[in-house]
C-alpha cells in the first residue's frame, strides 16, 4: 500500500511540474516552442492516465473530511492529527478522573455501610 501511495505521489508531482513548465512556456511564448508545448500537453494526458490507473489501488484509504478544511485554510494537515491526539488525551484524562472519583466514592460508601 505504501508503494502505491508513493507511486501516486510521484505521478502527481510530475503532473504538477509539467503544468508549471507549460505555464512558463505560455507566459512568454515563442514560435519555436510550439512543438515543446504540444509534447507537454500530451505528456499531461499520459500523466493523467497514470494517475487514473493508480486510483484503484488507493480506493480503500479513507480520509476524514475535516482534513480538507485544514488544507483549504492553507494549514498543515499534520495539525489535524495533532489536534485529534490532544483531544483524545484530554478526554482520556477526563474520563479517568471520573472513574477515579467514582471508585473513591464507592470505597467510602462501602466503609460507611460496613460500620
Amino acid at each position: 500500500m505504501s508503494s502505491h501511495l508513493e507511486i501516486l505521489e510521484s505521478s502527481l508531482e510530475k503532473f504538477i511540474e509539467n503544468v508549471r513548465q507549460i505555464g512558463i512556456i505560455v507566459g512568454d511564448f515563442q514560435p519555436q516552442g510550439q512543438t515543446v508545448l504540444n509534447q507537454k500537453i500530451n505528456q499531461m494526458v499520459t500523466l493523467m492516465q497514470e494517475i487514473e490507473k493508480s486510483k484503484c489501488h488507493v480506493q480503500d484509504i479513507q480520509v476524514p473530511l475535516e482534513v480538507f478544511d485544514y488544507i483549504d485554510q492553507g494549514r498543515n494537515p499534520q495539525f489535524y492529527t495533532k489536534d485529534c491526539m490532544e483531544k483524545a488525551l484530554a478526554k482520556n484524562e477526563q474520563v479517568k478522573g471520573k472513574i477515579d472519583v467514582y471508585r473513591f466514592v464507592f470505597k467510602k460508601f462501602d466503609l460507611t455501610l460496613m460500620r
Partner: protein
Amino acid sequence: MADIVRRSEQYSPKSSPRGARSPVVPRQDSTGTLKTTISLGKTPAIVHSGPFYLMKEPPSNTQSERTGATNLMSYHNLEHSYNKFCGRKMKDQLSTFLPSLPGNIDTPGHQDNSSLRSLIEKPPICGKELVPLSGVQLTGFRLHPGPLPEQYRLMSHQPQKKKHKNKKHKHKAGDTPSHESQQDVSTENTHEKKHKKQKRHDEDKERKKKKKEKKKKKKHSPEVCSVTPNPPHMGTPHG
C-alpha cells in the same frame, strides 16, 4: 425464620429493587459483606442472594478490559506518534508539508476557487476515457508569440521567503508579527516591487524627455541668436 433459599438462578429485572434498570449480570459473593435472601410464598420467586445491590463489587477484570481509565496512547502504541506530532514545533503553513509544490499554496482555497470542499460538493465530470491529442486537435493550441498580459501572469506570484530576524527590529511599535501579516507582507512586497519597477521605467522615460527638451532649448538660446546681427534701430533723438 423463613427458609433461606439461596439460588443462583437467573435474575429478572422485575424483581430487582431498581426495576428494569438492573443489569442481568452474575454477581459475585464477597466475604465479610452483608447478605440477605428473601423468599416469597410457596411459588419460588426470583430472589437476591448475596450482598446488597450497591455493595456488590464491580467486575475485576480490568487488566484485559479497556476502560476510560486505561492509557489509550500506550494501549494503541501511539506514544511515539504523540511525541512526534505534539512534542515538536511544527509550522502551521501548508507549504511546510508540501515544500516541492510551486506557487503560493498558503492562501485559502476559497479565494482562487481551488478549495477541496468545492471539489467534493461539485465533483467534476469524470469517467471519460483519457486519450492523447492528435495533430489536428493540437492545432487548437497554436499560440501567438509574445508575453502574457500582466493580469494573467499567475506563475510570477510566488511567496518570497524572507528572514525576518533582522527586520523585526526595524518594525514599528504598532506592528504585530503574525503568520497572516507575513503572508500579506510577502504578497504586498511582490506588488510593491512591480510598482517600483514601473515607476523606475516611467522616471527614466521622463528623464530622457527632459534631456531632449533641454537640448532643444539650447539650440534656441539667445547666445545662438546673437551671432546673427540685429538691424540698428532708428531711435528717437533724445533731448
